[in-house]
């Protein structure tokens, strides 16, 4: 993700009133982490398991914070139990920022990710959660804010899936090689 997109994404979160940010880092969207860390309006909590991140966010929501969970597609799968038995069972608004690894637009796609990219949207649909796929920075701040408010109004988790230009980063594997090259 470019520094400009990272800044706009964080600005969108602030505009939406997000003030609790819990995460396990990954490669595509991690440029936003220093911005969140340096901004005192966010309570930032690093975890070593996405399920823990979801439940921490639920605790924060119960006392009036507006929480975000940032993870990649694999982490969303790992957090499924916490998402269902805590966030959905109790009806708590949690906005997920998901790096859509393995999606067709993922600039750093590989065999390691493609399985998760094929399954993610179907899994979210099965849960009945609202989501949007973002491929570029068009109207980014509004789209972040809309989904944060959708979580508040539905009292349920909602998801933003980031692919396309959000997934390019320096040093990633180049895809311009031809087969057998």
């Amino acid at each position, binding site marked *: 993700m470019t520094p400009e997109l990272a800044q706009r994404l964080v600005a969108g979160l602030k505009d939406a009133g997000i003030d609790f940010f819990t995460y396990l880092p990954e490669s595509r969207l991690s440029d936003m982490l220093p911005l969140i860390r340096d901004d005192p309006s966010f309570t930032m909590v690093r975890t*070593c398991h996405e399920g823990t991140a979801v*439940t*921490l966010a*639920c605790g*924060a929501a*119960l006392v009036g914070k507006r929480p975000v969970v940032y993870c990649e597609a694999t982490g969303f799968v790992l957090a499924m139990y*916490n998402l269902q038995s805590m966030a959905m069972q*109790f*009806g708590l608004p949690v906005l997920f920022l998901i790096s859509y690894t393995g999606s067709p637009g993922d600039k750093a796609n590989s065999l390691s990710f493609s399985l998760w990219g094929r399954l993610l949207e179907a899994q979210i649909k099965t849960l009945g959660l609202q989501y949007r796929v973002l491929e570029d920075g068009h109207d980014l701040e509004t789209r972040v804010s809309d989904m944060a408010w959708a979580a508040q109004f539905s009292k349920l988790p909602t998801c933003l899936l980031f692919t396309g230009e959000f997934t390019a980063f320096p040093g990633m594997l180049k895809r311009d090689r031809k087969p057998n090259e």
Partner: protein
Amino acid sequence: MERIDCLKLLAPMITDELVVIGIAGVNWEWRYLSKHEGNMTIGTLGHTLAVGTGMAMSLPHRRVIVLESDGSSLADLPCLTTIGTYRPDNLKVFVFDNELYSGSRISDPTVTAFNTDLEKMASGAGIPTTATVRDVESFGVQARAALSEPGVRYVVAKVGEGAAARKLPRPREDYLETKYRFIRYIERTEGKTIFPEQR
């Protein structure tokens, strides 16, 4: 030592603390003993510790008490590392470790019945103040310290099976009722609106 004797000692000490309660026996016993509006019962394995930690980090001026069991603690061991990293001053954790899964009907043992030591795991995760207690008097010392001294605290209370809890009346309050009662208490005591207005 029986869990309910520890809870009987703790319940009258609670004033404006937020109390997050785990699953099964500790849930039934605490709800039987305490009608505190700041009780938030989770009732699902593996969430109590992280819910309490999220609350403690969100409301640092408010003491948060977590009443957890060994089985549920073992289901979210990663949370120990989050607590050890941030060490929220206002978080006080009591794990009632009966070394078995009461919900299994056959009292199948948890790993704490063998070689696993939850207090050592908490200490190794970076939680500076930990203890294991085996009698009610020692529990009382830890409870009073938790409610009067600053600093994150993690106490493992080794207790009997607590099978008598199964005979207590089960709560009629469901998940959503619990949530709204708790949220209204937070709104009133913190002077804030948690959910937006509805049309």
